[in-house]
Every structure is written in structure tokens, then in C-alpha cells.
């Protein structure tokens, strides 16, 4: 019997689990995917918003700016890449200036610190590659960029270090109310628990409706993105166009790893699993982005992707005990700025749990720090020398584009919440994330996964266990094996 089962290991479920792991509780996280942070949390703009655009009377407005403040400590503890690079919302005419003034005023209400409205000259000094027609901009220095899926992975790893359990490829198919709490039915058997926290992203309404009357609905809103190669000297801040009814407007931003990310558009879709990119969305992104800067080298695109915003008909986060279901807490409608707000949201959820349980008891031995990961590429020459001496696997470069070593991959597999697939290795170490997109390193990564997990090459998937990479041994290889066996 669990005290709490958390459904969904996106950033909501992951970070809430980490915060609850401070207490004496038996907690399980289940996710239908083969890795944590494998849905919306891996397909977004990865921006920690300053918090000036959400309305102060909404939960989005209430949690964004306070959440933003907490990232320095959290990212230090969890060893997650995070940079406060500041954001600019660009204005090109008098209408835009009004919008920007409104955003500024709203930001004051939300207690966003250090905002300034800049004029053309200063903007172009900060960002020489922007469209010279820019007239003004809202500058928010507290906005930052984060490694979004690293954040989820690190949160779950730290939660597991502190006793939380994780079951992947475990899909919740039904929930029954019991006198002890709830019985959760999954493709991998039943789980009994006193409390449930529903963090199922675009499926949060479906999960809610398993225990109580439908009282909200989630409609996915798709956003397409381009990822550009590293080493392009394009922008140093997060660049927004003025918001429209289609969301915060297309963004151009550096990523924590030095790529450039451009997107998203915003289109309601019916299919909750539809993260396919589409031509019209990508075209819209390109057109809008070129308004911000004419200097974008679209020939340096290395990947496109799309993510789904979990838009609720309340047009706000829904964070509460569900109507008509005691001990069942919804964290739903968790669209942007979910990533930015999650630290504050998690505290709020802890408070809800405090009330429901009549008081949680702190563990004595909670360790807030995750063991640091080594990023060989970022070490100095001296450090590189030393670390290879200690562990020669650091001298074996597996991914040439991102300079990832065998030792880093082995570590990513053997930690708590370790990698089980080629994609999971990519998310943890960046092997395969670069300009050749794994063309060179994927055979090597498979070899290491197979060795460390004691599996055959053909059993190593790209992502889910159904996403096989290899079908069988070649005829030639089979003959070789037969003859080796004396056949």
C-alpha cells in the first residue's frame, strides 16, 4: 500500500515527487512512457519566464514569479543546467508599445523584479542581429533558460535517492474508490494507495474522469519548433514577439546547451498523442521569427519537433482536490508557464497534502543534492587529463558532435532513474543530440546499453520498448555465428 501514487512523470509529477520525498511517505510514480519527462516536458521552449504576462488573479500569475526565484537553489541542488539570460519582448509599432506597457504594469502586480522598457538603440546594442525596425522592448533580466527534461530526470533521480519508487511503461487504465483510498489499475497490475496526485498532462481530464464526474476538459494545443546548430552567434537573450491570441508569440532563444530554438505556433488539435510536426505550423514559425531577426540561418536547422500544451477550459492551472473525490489531487491544465511555476506549485501541493493528512513528518536523512554529473566537454584540459587517469572510459569519445564519453553514458545508465533506451541516453548525456543526430554514435550507444543492461543489441529500443531499432542479425552474421558454434 502506498501513501501516494503520482500519475505522470512530466515536470509536474517529477518535481512534486521530489518535494514530497522530504517527508516520511511511501510514494510511487507511474508513467506510461519508457522515460520520465517524455511528453510535454521534453517539447517546449524551456524558458523560466519572469512572470509578467500571466494575470495576477490566476494561478498562473500567482505561481510564476515566485517559482522563478527558486530556480538558482534548485538547479544547484539537482545539478540542472540553468542560465538567467533575461528576456526581451519586442515592439515594432505603437500598438505593440501599449501591449508592452500593459505587460510591464502586470509584471509589477506579479512582483516581477528589475523590469525595464528599452528603446531602439539600447536593444540593438544588446542584440545587434535583431530587425532594425524594432522601436521598444520589455526587458526582464530574471527570465532564464533551463534543461527541461534534465530537470525532470534530476528531480526523479533525487526523489528516488530519497526513497521514491518509479515504474515506467505503466499506463493507468482505471481507478476504483476503496475504503483505504484508491485501487489503480494499470497494464502492469494494480496499485493500492491512500492518495493520488494526477499529473497526467494532456490526459489529466481522462484520469480525473476515472474517479469523479467530468468537471473540466483538456484540449491539446500544438506548437512546432526548429532547433538550430550550435555555434551560431544569433541572440543572447530570449526574444519574444508581442503576444497574440495564439500564445506568447514566436520565440527565438538560445538553449542551455548553445543551440538556438525557434517556435512555437499554436494550433488546437484533437489527438492527445499527436506530436507530429506539420508544414503549415513550421511555415508560420519561420515567417514570424523572421520578423524578429532577418539574420536567422534556417539552413542550420538540425531538427524539428512539436509539443502539446495541456490547455484547460478554465484557461488556468487546476491545482486542487478533485470535486467529489477525496484524497485525489489534480495538477491539470498545466500549460505554460508550468515549468517556471512548478517550484511554487509543488510547495502548494505539499500544503494541500499537509491539510489532507493532518500533517506530514520530515525525514531526518533527506538529501537535497543529486550526485553531480560530469560533462567532459566542459572540463578544463587539466581536469580532462586527471579524470581520464582515474577512469580511462573518459578517454573514449562516443558522440563526436557533443563530445560525450563512454564514462558519462555508463553513469547515465547506472544511476537511479537510469537510461534504458538510446533516446534516454541522449536526453541525459546529449549523445546523438548534435548536428549528426546520432548517425555516428548510435551503434556505439547501443553497444554500451546492451553491455550495461545485459541485453542483446536487438532488445535495445530507441524509446519505448516497441520502438525497436534493429530487426535481426544479418544473414552473414548468422552464418558466422553458426560456423563459430561448429555448425
Amino acid at each position, binding site marked *: 500500500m502506498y501513501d501516494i501514487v503520482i500519475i505522470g512523470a512530466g515536470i509536474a509529477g517529477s518535481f512534486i515527487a521530489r518535494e514530497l520525498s522530504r517527508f516520511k511517505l511511501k510514494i510511487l510514480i507511474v508513467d506510461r512512457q519508457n522515460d520520465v519527462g517524455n511528453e510535454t516536458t521534453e517539447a517546449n521552449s524551456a524558458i523560466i519566464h519572469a512572470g509578467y504576462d500571466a494575470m495576477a488573479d490566476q494561478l498562473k500569475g500567482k505561481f510564476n514569479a515566485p517559482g522563478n526565484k527558486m530556480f538558482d537553489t534548485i538547479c544547484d541542488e539537482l545539478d540542472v543546467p540553468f542560465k538567467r539570460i533575461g528576456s526581451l519582448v519586442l515592439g515594432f509599432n505603437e500598438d505593440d508599445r501599449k501591449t508592452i506597457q500593459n505587460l510591464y504594469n502586470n509584471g509589477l502586480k506579479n512582483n516581477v523584479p528589475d523590469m525595464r522598457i528599452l528603446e531602439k538603440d539600447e536593444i540593438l546594442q544588446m542584440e545587434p542581429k535583431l530587425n532594425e525596425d524594432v522601436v521598444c522592448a520589455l526587458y526582464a533580466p530574471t527570465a532564464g533558460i533551463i534543461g527541461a527534461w534534465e530537470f525532470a530526470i534530476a528531480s526523479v533521480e533525487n526523489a528516488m535517492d530519497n526513497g521514491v519508487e518509479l515504474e515506467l511503461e505503466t499506463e493507468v487504465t482505471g481507478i476504483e474508490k476503496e475504503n483505504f483510498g484508491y485501487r489503480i489499475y494499470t497494464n502492469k497490475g494494480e496499485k493500492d494507495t491512500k492518495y493520488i496526485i494526477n499529473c497526467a498532462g494532456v490526459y489529466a481530464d481522462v484520469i480525473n474522469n476515472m474517479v469523479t464526474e467530468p468537471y473540466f476538459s483538456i484540449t491539446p494545443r500544438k506548437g512546432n519548433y526548429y532547433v538550430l546548430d550550435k555555434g551560431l552567434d544569433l541572440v543572447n537573450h530570449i526574444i519574444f514577439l508581442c503576444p497574440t491570441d495564439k500564445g506568447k508569440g514566436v520565440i527565438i532563444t538560445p538553449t542551455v546547451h548553445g543551440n538556438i530554438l525557434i517556435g512555437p505556433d499554436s494550433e488546437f488539435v484533437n489527438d492527445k498523442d499527436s506530436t*507530429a*510536426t506539420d508544414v503549415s505550423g513550421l511555415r508560420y514559425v519561420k515567417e514570424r521569427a523572421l520578423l524578429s531577426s532577418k539574420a536567422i540561418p534556417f539552413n542550420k536547422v538540425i531538427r524539428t519537433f512539436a509539443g502539446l500544451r495541456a490547455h484547460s477550459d478554465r484557461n488556468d492551472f487546476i491545482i486542487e482536490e478533485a470535486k467529489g473525490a477525496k484524497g485525489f489531487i489534480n495538477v491539470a491544465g498545466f500549460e505554460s508557464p508550468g515549468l517556471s511555476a512548478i517550484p511554487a506549485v509543488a510547495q502548494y501541493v505539499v500544503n494541500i497534502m499537509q491539510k489532507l493528512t493532518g500533517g506530514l513528518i520530515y525525514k531526518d536523512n533527506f538529501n537535497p543534492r543529486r550526485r553531480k554529473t560530469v560533462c567532459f566537454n566542459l572540463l578544463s584540459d587539466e581536469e580532462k*587529463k586527471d579524470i581520464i587517469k582515474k577512469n580511462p572510459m573518459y*578517454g573514449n569519445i562516443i558522440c563526436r558532435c557533443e563530445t560525450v564519453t563512454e564514462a558519462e553514458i555508463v553513469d547515465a545508465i547506472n544511476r537511479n532513474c537510469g537510461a534504458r533506451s538510446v533516446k534516454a541516453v541522449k536526453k541525459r548525456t546529449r549523445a546523438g543530440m548534435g548536428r549528426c*543526430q546520432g*548517425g555516428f554514435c548510435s551503434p556505439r550507444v547501443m553497444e554500451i546499453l546492451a553491455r550495461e543492461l545485459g541485453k542483446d*543489441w536487438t532488445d535495445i529500443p530507441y524509446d*519505448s520498448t516497441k*520502438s525497436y531499432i*534493429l530487426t535481426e542479425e544479418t544473414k552473414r552474421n548468422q552464418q558466422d555465428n553458426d560456423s563459430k558454434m561448429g555448425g
Partner: protein
Amino acid sequence: MISYDIVVIGGGPAGLAAAIEARNYGVKKILVLERDKELGGILQQCIHNGFGLHIFKEELTGPEYAERFITELKSLKIDYKINTMVLTITKDKTIHAVNPKDGYMVIQAKAIVLAMGCRERTAGAISIPGTRPSGVFTAGTAQRYINVEGYMVGRRVVILGSGDIGLIMARRMTLEGAKVLCVVELMPFSGGLTRNIVQCLNDFDIPLYLSHTVTNIKGKDRVEGVTIARVDENRLPIPGTEIDYDCDTLLLSIGLIPENELTVKAGAQIDMRTNGPVVNESMETTISGVFACGNVVHVHDLVDFVTEESRRAGRSAAKYVQKKLVEDGNEFKIEALNGISYIIPQTVRIDNVDKSLDLYLRVRNVYDRVKLVIKADQETIKEINKRHMAPGEMEHIVLSKDLLQEKSFERLTIEVKEGI
């Protein structure tokens, strides 16, 4: 610090030929660095026949061709390190490299030869719409899985791009029992060698759809199908021409890109048309004493040309070390005009040209019965009749030194003249 006269980066056919040639020209301390677990480069996965027709006058497989050079390298006692990745090189010719055995190495060279080869363009680069399941491979990666690691990558296959690797993989996968449904090419002509179209597609009844592209990828976990469509003259899909294919694999053979991260970081000038370094008659980059050859300079279809070009680079590096290379003096630029996509080399110091100057170029389109017109400044100095030229086949032109020495000029241009 370790020091060498010449350090060669990359142990493929280019690096091997350059190292051997430099030794034959009297350089003692040469080191070849290769990141893979064996020497030979991309040839080790090309188990088909068709290498060496020019150089050895016989048809070898890729590994056989490589083996001849590896054997020679070893018999000449040239130092080499495998499993060794070069991380950076600097303008003053220090090389930073790592391997598990020697750890982090800093090596000082008098001259460097860049021979890092190329990598493949990926699905991301061409932004094919749709899902991102497993089962989308670049042709070279699939080739590595099949020929080196010994595993099949799929059973029903569509191939996008008719470059040589794609064509060869169509045949290879068919022989391994997979069904290759079609090869789809965006351009109105194939970028591959004619002999490969005949031997790899026609002989196996695999259809080639020219002026077509893949417009959608379907499948959640693994590829379940792709949609192809005809494209118009602007290469945009024509609505209504879509055909759906059930397949589990999409192979991409959509181009190769010279692997020049090291070159760029060192500060050498890159030619936007080749994506390789700008080189002179000696295959020297814009950094004095840093030479380059093979696919890192421009993508070759025939390894024999790689070998020839690399010998020139090795010879030049030897001369540089021996201070026999003329550093300045008369120099002219070579420029590609109408119909030519690029020419190697981009600059020439005539004093370093022996008896004749070798030029390698590619045309932009398929041409029949045209002339290549070569001009020194405005004056035509040579015309060459061409029965047939295609972007997929590299052209080799030889100009005698006498012809070039007659007068002084600044610009040598080459263009295609049609309608003859």
C-alpha cells in the same frame, strides 16, 4: 609535449595516402590519429566492389582497398593511434586529442593534414513533417549496422535520395531479404553514379521516382508508413500527387557534409559551396602549414580521386616541413561561373605547380554536348568539349604549367557554354 613533423587527422583513405606519401618524400616523424577502432575510414563499411579501378586497375572492395594502404603504412613504420579523438587544433599547430590509453594528449606538429572525411545530412536538416519514431536512418548509419555490426535495420524500406550510398544500400538490403519499395529523389536527376543506378536499382527492379519527395512520416514507436509526392519546379510538393507506402524503415541518402568543426575552430576559411576549407594548389588551407584532403575538402564519389588528391597534400606537407614550399609569389584565384558549383583548388601559387595543375569541379545540372570554357582574366585560354556532365560525377581538368605561365593574370574562371 609530444612533437611530430606531420600529424594527420583521420585514418581513412585520405589520411593514409597523405601519410605514406609524406614518408616517401623523406619525412621521418609522422603520426596518424584515428577515432575509430581501426584504420580505413568509411571504406571499412563499403563491402561492395568498385574501388581502385583508376589506381590499381582492378576492382576491389572497400576494405581491400583500405588494406593495401594500411599494410604499406605499417611496413613504413608510420606511427598511428586508433580510438583517438582529436578535440581541437590551433593555428600554431598544436593538437589536443584523447584516448583511453594515453589519456589527454597535447601534440605539437610542424605541419598538419586534415583528413576527417564527412558526415551525412540528417532528417532534421530537411525538416520532413510528421512523427519522430525509430526506423529513420541515414544510409551510412544503416550500412554500418548491417556491414560492420551485423544487424538488419528493417524489412520494408523506402529510400529518400539517390546518392551513391542510398543506391548501394538499396541493393544491400534487398540481398539481405528486405523489400525496398522505391527510391525517391527530389531533383529531376540522380546524384549517384550511373553504374550504381544500373547495378543497384535496375537489376533488382527497384523503381526510382525523380522529382519526388517524402512529405510525411507516420508511426508512433516505429515507422509505419511514409507519404511521397511529386514536386514542382520549385521543389515544393504538388497536392494530389501523394502516394502512401506501408514501410517500417526510411533510409536517407540526402547528401554528405564535410566534417570541418576542427577546421573552423582553428580559424581556416571555409568555402560556402563545398563546406570544406579553401585550399591552394598544394591542398594547403588558409592557415599556413595546415593541409587538407579527401572528403573533408569536398565530397568525392570515387576513392581513387581521394587517393590522388591526398598524395598531393602529403607531398606538399613534406615540402612545407622541408621548407621547399614557396610561400608567396605569383598567385591567382580560381572562380566557378555559369553552371559550375565549385572548383578545387580555389587559389594557385604557380611556383609550386610542377608540370601541370589538376582541377576538380562539379557542375550544377545535367549537361549534354557543351563546352567548358577556361579564361585567364577575360581571355579564353582553353575550351574543352563535353559530351555529358552531371552533378553526380566529378570532373577532372589538367592544365599545363606552360599554358598558365605565358602571361600574368589574377583570375582563372571556368564556365559551361551551352548550345554548341
